[in-house]
């Protein structure tokens, strides 16, 4: 029943984004009908929007989900139930994750089906080459990473606004920081969720996923030790 509660808390937000994710590609294709843009750039547009939409959804779900559970107002009600705080942290995180994956699936399906109407090779753009599965996976992992980061920060800072702001700052600021560091000290910082150093793509993907889980684990520790 806690699962159900988390679902209820995030339901409206989820549905709005689900619908949005489902229609963005078909609508764009409709708007660009006849221009030939879809055939040339469709696949890549799809790939970028796939990633962007997911990051936006990730941020939103994280803030809303976490603040419902760990905000000052409901913590007294939740944490006096006979379940460990770790349970609450992970269960509500997984509900949001499930919703994120559902939106990702819908978005992908909608995009793929839309592009299918225009070419037999939907994920292949004549201009930019194929959209690889790695690129899509990276987008997905980026979303999971962002979601977990925002979720943890919201839970730790106990504020949706602060958590969101901090997460956005980190997610969007890190690439710039990496550039600055590379320029100044010639060190290549790993950027989420691009491949790390010399690791294989799979290894990099797994590492970033692990980092995402680590964020949640840290949030768990902080909340377990915290006072209400």
């Amino acid at each position, binding site marked *: *029943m*806690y699962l*159900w*509660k988390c679902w*209820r*808390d995030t339901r409206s937000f989820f549905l709005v984004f689900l619908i949005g994710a489902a229609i963005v590609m078909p609508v764009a294709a409709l708007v660009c009908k006849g221009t030939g843009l879809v055939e040339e750039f469709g696949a890549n547009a799809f790939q970028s929007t796939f990633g962007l939409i997911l990051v936006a959804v990730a941020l939103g779900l994280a803030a809303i989900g976490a603040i*419902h559970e760990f905000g*000052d*107002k*409901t*913590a*007294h*009600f939740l*944490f*006096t*139930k*006979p*379940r*460990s705080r770790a349970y609450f942290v992970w269960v509500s995180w997984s509900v949001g994750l499930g919703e994120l994956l559902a939106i990702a699936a819908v978005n992908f399906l909608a995009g793929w089906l839309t592009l299918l109407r225009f070419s037999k090779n939907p994920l292949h753009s004549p201009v930019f080459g194929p959209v690889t599965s790695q690129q899509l996976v990276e987008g997905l992992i980026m979303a999971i990473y962002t979601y977990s980061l925002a979720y943890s920060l919201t839970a730790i800072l106990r504020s949706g606004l602060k958590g969101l702001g901090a997460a956005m700052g980190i997610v969007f600021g890190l690439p710039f920081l990496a550039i600055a560091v590379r320029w100044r000290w010639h060190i290549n910082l790993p950027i989420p969720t691009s491949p790390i150093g010399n690791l294989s793509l799979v290894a990099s993907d797994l590492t970033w996923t692990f980092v995402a889980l680590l964020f949640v684990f840290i949030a768990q520790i902080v909340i377990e030790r915290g*006072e*209400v």
Partner: protein
Amino acid sequence: MSELAISVNRLTKVYGDVLAVNRLDLSVPRGSIYGFLGRNGAGKTSTIKMLLGLTRPTSGSAHVLGMDILASRMPILRRTAFVSEKKTLPPSLTPSELVRFSRGFYPTWLDQAVEKYARLLEIPMNQRFERLSNGNQTKVFLLLALAQGAELLILDEPTTALDPVSVDQLLRVLAADAADRGTTVFFSSHQLEEVEQIAEYVGMVEGGRLLMESRLDDVKNDFRVITAAGSNLPRETNSQVLSVEVKDNFYRYVITKDGEGYAGDLAQNGATVTHVAPLSLREIFLELVRKEKLCTSGNAGETPVLSSSSS
């Protein structure tokens, strides 16, 4: 099976440089209704939070239902129902949904209690929580707590912001339910009249310190105010004399036990006793708080005035 539902031993909580709870001792007998009295900021909520594992004590120990609060948080939470000072719940859920939500956590849940109290307290079960009036919101909390089938109910200021009719309803329901099921009810309040209506035991705190803990009936039977006129009457306080007020040659004593005897002694020593009367809980509380504030150091070595010696 321990005979105390809650046992607190020199419990202390420091927040930064604020001493919220100061070596507090409490003994709450099983099956009783215990009123935990104190002003706002006296340390009631901090104490309760520690009992439920929401915050950790700085020092001291406590046992709830015979179990240590630090070692047995889960078993305690399974058998204890709690109504927080903050009457906030997930805003968009309805009372019915909240019942559905809470139910799964407790194997001792009582479905029939839900129906009974929803009807008795006239709670609109299908309205979103945020749309309920303050009174109804508090009643929802009470419903969830009563339906839990717990052995111990801990309520933090349950009657805040309730109108007198709702307060009366709440107190009646608590008293009746506790008697029916033998549950222990521990509730904090700064409304003395409410405590007087149903509590068997009272514990008074001020500045995080226990002022007094006793059976309510004993407090009322024992405490007396005596006014007398005379010269050179005793002016010292001791374990029997809580306070002395002198104006010209009029004396006002607040006595903690055997008031009639003390009055008799005064008369025999030449004083004219003008008035011997019992005190309401409010007056006793004010006296104790006044006296506590006169002590300059945190602990002047005074032990609480009465302890529950008779049972």
